[in-house]
């Protein structure tokens, strides 16, 4: 599993598509659920997937843990969202907390971790 993180619109998906096979299937967690991504080579917007899981009353860490046990050759992409003021709203706070936890778990289990900044690739692991 290859994890790609970075700020919003920094060129993460563009990079993933560049290193993937031709016609790679991209699943966007903004529009599909994590459980519906079986065919995907690339899964993007992890942070939005986490948000939807919380909204559905599920535990994101457990769901993503289970997911990566079943998927080996996959690229996961998410926005870094933890570098702002801690929000007063409980849900917004929980979203950032859970997203951070999911990233740490994914990072630990990933073969390779890259961070994208202004389109530049910074290898963090592998």
């Amino acid at each position, binding site marked *: 599993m290859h994890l790609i993180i970075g700020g919003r619109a920094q060129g993460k998906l563009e990079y993933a598509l560049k290193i993937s096979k031709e016609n790679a299937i991209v699943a966007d967690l903004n529009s599909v659920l994590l459980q519906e991504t079986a065919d995907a080579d690339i899964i993007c917007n992890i942070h939005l997937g986490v948000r939807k899981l919380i909204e559905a009353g599920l535990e994101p860490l457990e769901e993503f843990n289970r997911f990566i046990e079943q998927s080996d050759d996959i690229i996961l992409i998410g926005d870094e969202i933890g570098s702002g003021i801690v929000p007063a709203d409980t849900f917004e706070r929980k979203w950032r907390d859970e997203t951070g936890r999911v990233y740490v778990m994914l990072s630990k289990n990933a073969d390779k971790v890259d961070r994208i900044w*202004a*389109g530049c690739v910074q290898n963090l692991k592998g």
Partner: protein
Amino acid sequence: MLVFISGGVRCGKSTLGEKLSGELAKARKIYLATSIASDEEIIQRIELHKEQRLGKGFVTIEKSTRAGNIADMLVSGDTVLLDCLGNLLANEMFCEESTEPDDSIADRIFEDIQTINKKADNLIIISNDVFSDGCMYSHSVIKYIDTLAKLHRRIAEISDKAIECVSGSRVLHKNCI
């Protein structure tokens, strides 16, 4: 040489930009100031930046929009420090009379940067990383963030050095020198 520097608020970007200008400059150092003195806080901030530059040998040119127009004032040998791109884009996107589409503003700013870069020996561009807070902003703010991100990617791509400033230290993402 084209150098791109970005990072969070108060991480030492301006100081780093000034230092690099000094290292690179063989002749004139030009500070391209982009802030509009619109309220008391901005005026104080501008004064603080001016004080910090005092005695460092910068010629200041104030240009809050259409930065490419300063090219006529430049001569070969100049080192230009643009501080900062985030400000310049906000001035262009949110000025009252602007009806230009955001993508064409980004294209124009990118052209302006190339124009300045061709004329001057060195151009150092400072910008602001505003991409990692997860906030659900209004449509116009999201458009600003995405347009700035696009400019960052395009500028980093053509730059000789791309530096992320973190608490005053440099993370060198790209070094073609």
